[in-house]
């Protein structure tokens, strides 16, 4: 993919912003969230970041929000190289600490693949600072970026039919927590007792895009 920001049609009322990097996505999402909070994105019903794109969707029947987005996100890569939005805009990120029991079924596999000891894997995973790039897969499932290089490992060859709620795992460039029991193909490092998604809570999801996350080892 190119370095430029691209605006792609997404149906009659949606617009997909393609950015050159996950950092660009984070910056564009922050800019758009801040604009929505200030009432500068009238009629927008969804703002959804993903790995390299952000979806902006207007109410059904409305026109795609191209003009609103053009005013906020620079399409000129020379203006803001690789970012497409002001990285300092928006509110300060929320910081979340998640206590983890590092007792996962794939801990030794991850250590072997990384050519590290289990203790070193735990140290590495719990010393990094992560950012929630986006949510998806199931409610409250955050895809966290910032994984140290040795821990960027392939998904399991075969998905497990059922991964318990609270499982902490990694897959590709991401790490994260399964909010509820579901099928899953990530390598499991451990589990947390935290409730990651509670529809009755406010906010319902413990993690939202842009949040900063740390994992803290507990016995």
């Amino acid at each position, binding site marked *: 993919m190119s370095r430029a920001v691209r605006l*792609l*049609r*997404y*149906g*009659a*009322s*949606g617009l*997909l912003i*393609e950015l050159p990097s996950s950092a660009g996505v984070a910056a564009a999402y922050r800019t758009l969230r801040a604009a929505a909070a200030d009432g500068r994105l009238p009629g927008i*019903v*969804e*703002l*959804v*970041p*993903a*790995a*390299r*794109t*952000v*979806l902006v*969707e207007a109410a*059904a*029947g409305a026109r795609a929000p191209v003009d609103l987005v053009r005013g906020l996100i620079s399409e000129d890569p020379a203006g803001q190289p690789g970012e497409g939005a002001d990285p300092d805009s928006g509110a300060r990120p929320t910081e979340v600490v998640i206590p983890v029991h590092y007792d996962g079924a794939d801990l030794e596999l991850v250590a072997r693949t990384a050519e590290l000891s289990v203790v070193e894997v735990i140290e590495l995973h719990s010393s990094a600072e992560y950012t929630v790039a*986006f*949510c*998806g*897969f*199931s*409610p*409250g*499932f955050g*895809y966290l970026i910032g994984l140290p290089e040795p821990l960027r490992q392939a998904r399991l060859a075969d998905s497990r039919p059922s991964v318990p709620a609270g499982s902490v795992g990694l897959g590709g460039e991401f790490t994260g927590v399964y909010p*509820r029991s579901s099928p899953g193909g990530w390598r499991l490092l451990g589990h947390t007792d935290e409730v990651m998604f509670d*529809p*009755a809570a406010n*906010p*319902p*999801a413990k*993690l*939202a*895009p842009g949040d900063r996350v740390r994992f803290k080892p507990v016995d």
Partner: protein
Amino acid sequence: MATDRAITVLRSGPLTVITDLGRPGQAHIGVPRSGALDRDALRLANRLVGNPDGYAGLEVLLGGLELRAESNCTVAVTGPPVPAWRHGGGAERRAVGSHQVVYLRAGEHLELGVLDAGLRSYLACSGGLDVPEELGSRSTDLLSGLGPAKVSDGDRLALGAVGDAPADASPVPASVPPALVTVPVLLGPRDDWFVDPAGALRGRVWTVGPASNRIGLRLAGEPLERAAEWDGQELPSEPVRPGAVQVPPSGQPVVFLADAPTTGGYPVVGVVPESALGALAQARPGTKVRLSPR
């Protein structure tokens, strides 16, 4: 809003869920929109009984529902035409039909026959179904496990208070779902991943597959061919919305519906507009579908 008004579902048929207009605005935390698959049909049912558009009703798959009114209430059934009867629980039944207001006295039953065409009926009751909300909606989302469980035989469902708007006494026309459904699809965002996407879509008739559900309509037919430059490539996860036509490596498209997840990993060749999704919600397996590129 608590009242002692209620209905009891005596027979729920193959699948009955509680539904409204869903949970918009929460896709960024992974919450699907969900809600009625045929939104216009739910709105119409609500209007017939004098409810606001977004009140919760029942989405009934293939018919076969029977309920008993526990208090006087007004009901209406929309979607494809479906036989309906009112009775007192005994042998004597009176045909009342769909697409019109039906007044039930406490103790009276409403029974739906089997759909000859289409898939989903919508039943609204005056006052709406007053089950607890979850994330701003009373809709059952089977994929994400949000909202009430699917309706089971014997479930008693509370009704809200009746508003000021009168029920609409005149029947409205019902249209029979066609054997060939043509819907527009607005190309993009990833139409460039495919060889001549407009031409390929214009020339193909798809068949609705049996694995279709509230998450997506699975279409079978001559596969869409990936452009050589994208062959074997993986797309980083992208947001997906109801109406998105996602094309996995098999080339067999899936049109996402209300309970679809909020992100997906295959290219979306085009998006079916909201106004056409109701027609797809009524397309039963075997129905022919044409995606008309725009």
